[in-house]
């Protein structure tokens, strides 16, 4: 009590909460730092050809034309925005936080299509949120108390530091994965992280995985998923499977959803499993702010619904997407073409990097690749990695995300996004990297010869 008052007297104005003044928003990390450099000097083919190319943003722009084409052919879908007389009043007054049934049905079916119909989804278990960011936070609110922890395998999406921790007061305990087994999660690593938490007297409430992995772009194999499920059951903790890139897997048959494992095990232990999904990546619509939680736990569904009043999707957005996603002819075609294009992009960047002498982790999905620059570090440390990152950002003018911002346990890895730009821009980026590597080689040679 006494200190609270003292602090306020020192300050010129009225005090704020710890949430407001905390730096858990993580904006200081290099991941976001690079964005700022990009924002100040963004590349444009014509207007700013020497600007910074944004390769730190996992956005999918490769299939916009398919959505545009749909809109052209289906003017009635756009009518949901209000000029359709029948739907206007409903849209305007619709306040039910359960979300539109038609939209939840369409979402369930879309998720089934993405998984090659190998898993079933019940629309009544879908809780809509304004983006996956909100979905992940909401689940954390529900699964853990302040001071409790979630296990998250590294490298992980830097935004989790903010999304899972900031307002919830929950901690993240990293599960260290490394390149020796292509960064796969192992039971040993899980056990180690869990015990580490125990030693610190922190209660572990759950494990959060991203499948396909962000930032690795790899898939979690069925056997590993089974081990993970076995682990969380043994520890009586929750499993959150963030599958927001499931439709961005290059080949549908390669991907195994946790939903399929549950189905094959007749939903034993399903009540501890929750899936997070969103239309931001697979449909390339982050501007629409549509995310969701699919939980097999009734209580979580009920509570998440109530909490979703802090993060609702407007009724027009729901109506519009409901009509688009109910059109299975469109969705089937979209999913197929989008996969093909992403694969093409992926192959293009891998090939380009290889020509520059750079290897990547073999990926199967997502909007990025995991690039290994460890052979080129001056020192095999975080500092060495950030030094190279700095050169790439300021000299090569590419914003890529350093592995250390994803808590990667080995220095020298970088996430490089490839779907938020045109092919031409990607070519420019690859050329820049190529030139950079060539220059390094020449410099080194000169250096040696002196």
């Amino acid at each position, binding site marked *: 009590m006494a200190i609270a008052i003292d602090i306020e007297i020192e300050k010129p104005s009225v005090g704020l909460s710890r*949430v407001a003044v905390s730096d858990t928003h993580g904006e200081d990390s290099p991941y976001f730092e690079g964005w700022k450099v990009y924002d100040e000097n963004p590349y444009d083919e014509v207007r700013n050809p020497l600007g910074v190319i944004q390769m730190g943003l996992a956005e999918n722009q490769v299939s916009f034309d398919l959505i545009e084409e749909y809109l052209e052919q289906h003017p009635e879908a756009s009518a949901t925005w209000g000029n359709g007389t029948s739907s206007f009043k409903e849209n305007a007054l619709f306040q039910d936080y359960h979300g539109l049934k038609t939209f939840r049905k369409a979402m369930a079916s879309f998720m089934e299509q993405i998984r090659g119909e190998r898993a079933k989804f019940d629309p009544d278990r879908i809780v809509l949120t304004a983006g996956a960011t909100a979905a992940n*936070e909401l689940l954390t609110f529900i699964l853990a108390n302040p001071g*409790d922890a979630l296990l998250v395998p590294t490298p992980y999406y830097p935004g989790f530091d903010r999304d899972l921790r900031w307002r919830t007061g929950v901690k993240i305990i990293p599960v260290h994965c490394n390149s020796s087994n292509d960064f796969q999660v192992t039971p040993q690593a899980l056990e180690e992280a869990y015990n580490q938490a125990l030693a610190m*007297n922190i209660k572990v409430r759950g494990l959060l995985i991203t499948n396909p992995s962000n930032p690795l772009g790899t898939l979690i194999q069925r056997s590993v998923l089974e081990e993970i499920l076995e682990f969380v059951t043994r520890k009586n903790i929750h499993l959150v499977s963030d599958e927001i890139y499931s439709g961005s897997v290059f080949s549908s048959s390669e991907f195994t959803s946790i939903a399929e494992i549950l189905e094959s095990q007749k939903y034993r232990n399903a009540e501890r499993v929750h899936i997070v999904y969103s239309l931001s990546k697979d449909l390339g619509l*982050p501007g*629409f*702010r549509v995310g969701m939680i699919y939980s097999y736990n009734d209580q979580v569904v009920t509570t998440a619904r109530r909490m979703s009043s802090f993060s609702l999707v407007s009724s027009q957005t729901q109506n519009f997407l409901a009509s688009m996603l109910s059109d299975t002819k469109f969705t089937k075609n979209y999913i197929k073409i989008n996969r093909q294009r992403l694969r093409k992009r992926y192959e293009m960047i891998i090939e380009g990097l290889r020509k520059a002498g750079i290897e990547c982790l073999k990926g199967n999905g997502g909007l990025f690749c995991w690039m290994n620059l460890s052979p080129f570090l001056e020192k095999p440390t975080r500092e060495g990695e950030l030094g190279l990152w700095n050169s790439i950002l300021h000299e090569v003018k590419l914003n890529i995300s350093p592995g250390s911002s994803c808590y990667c346990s080995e220095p020298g890895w970088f996430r490089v996004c490839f779907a938020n730009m045109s092919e031409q821009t990607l070519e420019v980026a690859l050329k820049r990297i190529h030139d950079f590597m060539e220059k390094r080689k020449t410099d080194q040679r000169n250096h040696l010869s002196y």
Partner: protein
Amino acid sequence: MKRKQRQTNYTEETITLEMLNSKKASNMRTTNMMTGIRRSSNGGGGSGGSISGNSNSDTVRMNPESHSGGGGGGDGGTVMRIIVPLQGVVQGSGGLVLGSVIPCALFYLLQFYLRRNRSASPPSSSSSPSSKKQLVEASMLLRSPSHLFSRLSTGPAYISSRAYSITNSVDTPYYAGSKNVTEDPYDALNNPDGVMQLGLAENKLSLDLIQDWLAENVKDSIVGAEGGGDLSICGIATYQPFDGLMELKVAVAGFMSQVVEGSVSFNPLQIVLTSGVAPAFEILSFCLADAGNAFLVPTPYYSGLDRYIKWRTGVELIPVPCHSTDNFNLSITVLDRAFNQAKKRGLKVRGVIISNPSNPVGNLMSWETLYNLMDFSREKNLHIISDEIFAGSTHGDKEFVSIASVLESEDFDKSRIHIVYGLSKDLSLPGFRVGIIYSFNDNVLAAAKQLSRFSSISAPLQRLLASMLSDTRFVQDYIETNRKRIRTIYSAFVEGLKQLGIECMQSSGGFYCWANMSGLIRSYSEKGELELWDRLLNIAKINLTPGSSCHCIEPGWFCCCFTALTEKDIPVVMERILKVSETSKS
């Protein structure tokens, strides 16, 4: 070994709580206890800030609050809840025998523990950085009891205590009544015996105006607005600023200024847009108060605040009772008394939340009251959250005064003033989910912008609204026509009630009137009020919001929302009330 000792300690604490909760304690309550623990020890969370040291006394204080949780389970559950976790603690090194012996021993120890805690002095803590680590550790110790339960529960996987309190929160009549409406909605033609909704503040009077505007303009604003033919999918599909598009902020600021007839010029840079008013309130609550802190709220107040402000933040609301003798206007004397009482209880008060026009009474705050309130907040170093979501829905002769205009005229510290606004009421578009934080505090704005990522509005909708609200001629016409229509139906409705002998508080804003039905209640108490509410809902088939749902301290007041009605519905409503009022007399 050391850890085992510690765990035993947690268990002590847990049982302490159990005992306090009396024999009736149920499984649910045990969990709710944890809410208390969480709240009291929340401070150490992610940010690593200092926390108040003595959480035990806090925990004890919290207990009465947690009784509001649901039932479930029986007496046996309590015993199991105590014994089972203890077995878990000792199983590793002792097994079942110890597991049963230790609880008995602990029980006696706990009697002392409990007594000591009860007489504990108010929280004291130190701000020196060196002690931070200890404090954080302490907070973890206190939180830990809850995990003992989950480890052994063979049933459902563990749910956090804040989630439990939400899962098991019992619907107030405000929400319960609306369920009846959903199941059996009145329709003059198709379901004339259905339930009439007068409990939900929505406005159907002027939707035709918006619909007309959309029909004329919407094609241009969604796809291919600029440059003609260019499908601007990139401008809506990709990532946009989470706190809202600048074009919408500009349009909203203009709309807000039009609503107050130019008396204030709102600045788009002070706006953060959210997906509805609920997250706007919650974000402010997160920014202005820590878990365990409190806001003062004049009663009666909109029952949604209990959810928005408290649910996930752990922040408290302290009611400041207003009385019919003062026309339910806020009295600074009463506010001051509530502040001092809270202080005595050891609560840190962070601010005052007002609604102007008031929800649910409908009266407006005078310049003087606002001035005095700001004076009070300066003296006590408090924030003010002014909920002005009905600012454009005033219908009386009195002029609405925004707190922003008082601020402009006087040399106040602006950084403590925050306005919540939205388009659900004044534009009658709740389905569009647009809430607005308008703050004069740069740090709050910065934090709110960051936090808005958890509740952003979809970009296509923002573009649509931006173009609608930029049409100032339409906006002007809408506001004027809408006000006239509200005034007409307000007069008709209040007159109807008057003829039944029911008087309403003089109100000048909002979609509702505040009716005194104390003459119809059989016992002058909350029970009597709820009994009347029940008869109105189930016999007369009218859903009204009872004053007790709004924390009104005088029984017999009801909030009647009339803007979802047509004028033809009014006689039907009156007839139905008459039916109940006749049975009241008999």
